[in-house]
């Protein structure tokens, strides 16, 4: 019974983690205590826990949904999105702008089409690198760092255990292995012909998401004044994933450089 309760409490704690950050920080601890108190009450009264727990989980899940909805309505959600995505969007657009100008200025003929997909690919890779690295750079600048202090900041974070990093590594290897399957002009997905570029771009979201998640504990620790090296495994992941995106950008630029500078037969 006590074992069951420990599991239930751990699950409820996980559920509370889905609340918006401010809510979680202000009331998360109280919510956990209340859940524990209610569990104890049921246990002392020797009442079955199943119905109560189911009701609590559903009711809390509805509360989480409602809190997120009210955040969206209040505009805070959009502010957060703007704050998170604004700089990476700007940086990546500014970076590809000179290449776009070069492409237009050095056109081989006036009827030549603009390579939108090429620039979209370039932008997407740059956006991914910026999204992963800019928060780390910002946190590095904001924090008062003590390189001797390698204590990681407390908080629930994914990708800080060797097991989760191993799983992540396997996902990346899988990603790299299935990537070439979509190298043709189009591929069949659920019976529909989808251009391979779109599938490739959709697959970019996997390492991007992993990079953002891996960067989180590093950002948190840097903000708290800790060391960049406090989370070695996530740091390795961030470096590897960023390297992957940077190499994609470099290879695209090197490959297309003759076209950018106006070489007559460049493709």
């Amino acid at each position: 019974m006590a074992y069951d309760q420990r599991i239930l409490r751990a699950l409820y704690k996980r559920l509370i983690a889905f609340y918006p950050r401010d809510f979680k920080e202000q009331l998360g601890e109280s919510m956990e205590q209340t859940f524990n108190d209610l569990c104890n009450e049921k246990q002392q009264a020797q009442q079955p826990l199943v119905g109560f727990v189911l009701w609590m989980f559903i009711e809390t899940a509805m509360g989480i949904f409602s809190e997120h909805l009210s955040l969206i309505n209040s505009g805070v959600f959009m502010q957060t999105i703007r704050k998170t995505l604004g700089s990476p969007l700007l940086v990546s657009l500014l970076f590809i702008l000179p290449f776009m100008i070069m492409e237009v200025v050095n056109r081989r003929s006036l009827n030549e089409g603009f390579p939108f997909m090429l620039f979209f690919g370039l932008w997407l890779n740059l956006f991914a690198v910026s999204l992963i690295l800019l928060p780390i750079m910002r946190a590095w600048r904001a924090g008062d760092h003590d390189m001797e202090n390698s204590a990681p900041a407390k908080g629930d974070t994914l990708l800080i255990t060797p097991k989760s990093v191993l799983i992540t590594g396997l996902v990346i290897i899988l990603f790299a292995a299935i990537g070439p399957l979509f190298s043709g002009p189009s591929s069949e997905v659920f019976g529909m012909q989808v251009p391979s570029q779109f599938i490739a771009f959709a697959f970019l979201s996997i390492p991007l998401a992993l990079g953002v998640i891996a960067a989180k504990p590093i950002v948190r620790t840097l903000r708290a004044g800790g060391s960049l090296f406090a989370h070695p495994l996530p740091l390795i992941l961030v470096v590897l994933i960023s390297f992957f995106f940077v190499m994609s950008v470099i290879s695209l630029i090197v490959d297309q450089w003759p076209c950018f500078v106006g070489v007559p037969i460049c493709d």
Partner: protein
Amino acid sequence: MTTTSPNQPLTPAVFHILLALSSGERHGYGIMKQVELDSQGNVNMGAGTLYGSLKRMLDAGLVKESEKRIDPKLDDERRIYYQITGTGAKVLAAELERYKRIVTLAQERKIFPKTYGL
């Protein structure tokens, strides 16, 4: 719904929380139990509703957090207690006054018997 003006009607959850806190500081579980008691078991507030309402009430200044302390009736964990503020008390009084007016009106229209003592 955030309520700061005494003229705005309260949601049932906010009303019951304010009523529970009007008799003293309580932690989350204590509020739940008091609401159950006040409503004679008719209102069973879940944690999602309770803390969602508390968050809005804290933001609106109707309640405030007290210092953390141990509840001797429960385990030895330190709990956050919540207490009603001056604004919260005014809002609760205004809501009760509104209820009273509605009951008086219902009695005048003979919808509600006067023997209920209001």
